[in-house]
């Protein structure tokens, strides 16, 4: 804690091939890079799990895996993607970008930054190792509902421990973001001058600090119920299994906004650049983010409409959930107003951002439909819900992350990526993501429950489409990997501004951004 600036004072980083450099680094750019690569590796592992699921579902009948293993694939896939991909990717972006955006030399707590990253590989190694334990990996769904989850074999304590580590890591990351944003801004960088990415991350960080510990509490209760004789969720001892669902979703709904708010920030950075026009409604964007964050604490039971709640509860959660669509709508309208009468070009980051707007909105529409409690009785726990959350998460969060990588990659590595291949990547991803998830609306409405390894014959065509789409989407991401590696190794040199009309402090730095930047605070106009 001796310095607020970067922990070690080399002017040049050690060789990228030195393991020591990466193990002990406290440099925000190095740590950002680590997070991003970690997230990509988890994306591949989680993706393989998704393909196991889709392979089994290619046709009716049991072909490839045992139903129990299938259930552990759905469970693990979700945990990997949420805690291993989207959250670390956002933390990686935060590490790279927040200091550069607010004119700070580094994150406020560089040593903690190192720990919060290095916890993750251990946590996920432990999580993955449970697949080989007696009784198999966790198979009760990522929602971990008891009593089912208490039927997990030897894996349970390891699953819970590893989730504690993931939570710890993200709480530490969040504390770091708040401390950085509140204390490290260059003079003149007032709160209402901060880029929206910083704003949305600040609010996300508060959400993380508020709800990750609640999840930790809930899963600890699971653990003590199973091994130490408590009865939090056991009716025989005066507990109630439904209470777990309340605790889980008290965490879970804010969590889904943790998974989307930073994307809002990314898109709000990209659209103005390529529309060559300032962001429309900056202030209302900030307020809408705040409103969403606040509302996200009072809508949780919309995940539990069928659980048997009093009528009044049901109505309250329905109204509150519908309300949350309003600030979400405001964001979309603002982005379109930003584009309106701009002078647009369509480089890859812009394409992904536009794809985000359209497909995230489709997810928002199904969200709105799901909010209607009596209709949710038909939607709940079907593929319609699966379609909903994949629209907001894949062409939502994941597209935003990809857009961010394309947008800032030239700043990170100093080279331009191949625009042609980037566009191919966009179109392939967009086609396949829709081929995968759009038909899921149909089978869901037609009555196919989620989390089943086999299904009735009338669902077969759309499932086949979804499987084809999933393989296509998965393979397309390898193109992304190739493209990024190519750009790191070679490519046209990027200028410091990179994009014609990019605005923000990070674009005043040379490309690639020097290992230590803003050691003296920049002047802010």
């Amino acid at each position, binding site marked *: 804690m001796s310095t607020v600036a970067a922990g070690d004072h080399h002017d040049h980083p050690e060789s990228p091939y030195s393991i020591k450099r990466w193990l002990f680094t406290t440099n925000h750019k190095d740590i950002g890079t680590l997070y991003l690569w970690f997230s990509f590796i988890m994306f591949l592992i989680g993706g393989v799990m998704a393909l196991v699921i889709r392979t089994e579902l290619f046709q*009716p*009948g*049991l072909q490839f895996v045992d*139903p*129990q293993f299938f*259930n552990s694939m759905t469970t693990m896939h979700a945990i990997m993607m949420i805690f291993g991909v989207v959250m670390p990717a956002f933390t990686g972006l935060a590490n790279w970008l927040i200091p550069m955006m607010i004119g700070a030399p580094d994150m406020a707590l560089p040593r903690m930054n190192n720990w919060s990253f290095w916890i993750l590989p251990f946590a996920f190694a432990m999580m993955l190792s449970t697949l080989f334990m007696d009784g198999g990996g966790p198979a009760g769904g990522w929602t971990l*509902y008891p009593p*089912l989850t208490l039927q997990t074999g030897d894996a349970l304590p390891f699953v819970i421990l590893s989730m504690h580590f993931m939570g710890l890591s993200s709480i530490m990351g969040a504390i770091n973001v708040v401390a950085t944003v509140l204390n490290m801004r260059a003079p003149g960088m007032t709160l209402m001058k901060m880029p929206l990415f910083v704003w949305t991350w600040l609010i996300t960080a508060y959400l993380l600090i508020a709800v990750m510990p609640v999840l930790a509490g809930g899963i600890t209760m699971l653990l003590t119920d199973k091994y130490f004789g408590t009865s939090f969720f056991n*009716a025989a001892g005066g507990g109630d*299994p439904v209470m777990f669902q309340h605790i889980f979703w008290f965490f879970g709904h804010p969590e889904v906004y943790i998974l989307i708010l930073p994307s809002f920030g990314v898109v709000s950075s990209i659209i103005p650049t390529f*529309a*060559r*026009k300032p*962001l*429309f*409604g900056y202030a*209302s964007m900030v307020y809408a983010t705040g409103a969403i964050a606040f509302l996200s604490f009072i809508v949780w039971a919309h995940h539990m409409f*069928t*659980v*048997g709640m009093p*009528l009044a509860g049901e109505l309250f959660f329905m109204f509150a959930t*519908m309300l949350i*669509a*309003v600030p979400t709508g405001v964001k979309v309208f*603002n982005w*379109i107003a930003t*584009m309106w*009468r*701009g*002078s*647009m070009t*369509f480089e890859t980051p812009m394409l992904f951002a*536009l794809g985000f*707007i359209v497909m995230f909105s489709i997810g928002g529409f199904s969200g*709105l*439909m799901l909010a*209607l*409690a*009596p*209709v949710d*009785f*038909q939607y709940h*726990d079907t593929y319609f819900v699966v379609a909903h959350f994949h629209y907001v998460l894949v062409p939502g969060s994941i597209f935003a992350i990809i857009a961010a990588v394309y947008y800032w990659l030239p700043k990170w590595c100093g080279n331009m990526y191949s625009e*042609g*291949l980037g566009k*191919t990547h966009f179109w392939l991803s967009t*086609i396949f993501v829709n*081929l995968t998830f*759009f*038909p899921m609306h*149909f089978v869901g409405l*037609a*009555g196919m*429950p*989620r989390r089943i390894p*086999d*299904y*009735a014959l009338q669902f077969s*065509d*759309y499932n086949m489409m979804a499987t084809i789409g999933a393989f296509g989407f998965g393979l397309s991401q390898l193109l992304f990997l190739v493209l990024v590696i190519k750009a790191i190794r070679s490519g046209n040199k990027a200028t410091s501004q990179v994009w014609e009309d990019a605005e923000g402090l990070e674009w005043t730095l040379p490309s690639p951004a020097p290992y230590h930047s803003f050691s003296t605070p920049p002047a802010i106009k």
Partner: protein
Amino acid sequence: MFAIKRLNAWLGLAFISVVSGSAFAGQPMNMTPGVTDISAEVYDMHMIAFWLCVVIAVVVFGAMFYSIFAHRKSRGVTPATFHESTTIEAIWTIIPFVVLIALSIPATKTLIDMYDTSDYDLTVKITGYQWLWHYEYVEDGVDFHSKLQTSISQINNDEEKGENYLLEVDNELVIPVGKKVRFLITSNDVIHAWWVPDLAVKKDAVPGFINEAWARVNEPGIYRGQCAELCGRHHGFMPVVVRAVPEAEYRQWVAANAKPESATEYAVVSQ
């Protein structure tokens, strides 16, 4: 470079055909209007919400695509500089708000109906087990288990799959048409959910607690559903089959299946 551009144009076309093509596969792709008044209301509300979303999508995406078309640099436009307008921002906050309130009114009404179990005609207690259902006709003294009938060889692809693959049971839940059937739903082990789309009934079966739902079926027929809450290994293999029959036929069925000892215990005591 040129080749990649061509490729990208083709990909764009392919995208459009995927979206439109997926709608023509010929298998069911929408919610069922079902066979109860409530399920019809739910279906209507679903369609209203759906078309509302379509209209919003056309307007919003229409504006966006128009802008993408008209306000592009290659057309030589100079960008405007406006970046806020309190009026417009107020309008697009308030209009969605009003629309949502309008949408929630019929939803509230239907929900209240769904919660009203008074004036029922008969009660069926449903208990979920890993992995089958147990039905008990509380007043009529019939009770039995109901489990998947599809053969293992069909599931393992050794035999051709039948028409009702995975949606067939050994003992169907028989209920009379036109009567208000009250369901009491609970579980023996983990949480399950009893779901029949045609009745618009989906309720969790929670161990230690009873939940309530009801349905008044308008047409005789066989209605199939499934467990809708992950309940372990064979969660995908515990279907629900409801056979709705005319009242007289139901009475006959009860007479043939009632267990005398449980029927006699049913005595109303007034004081």
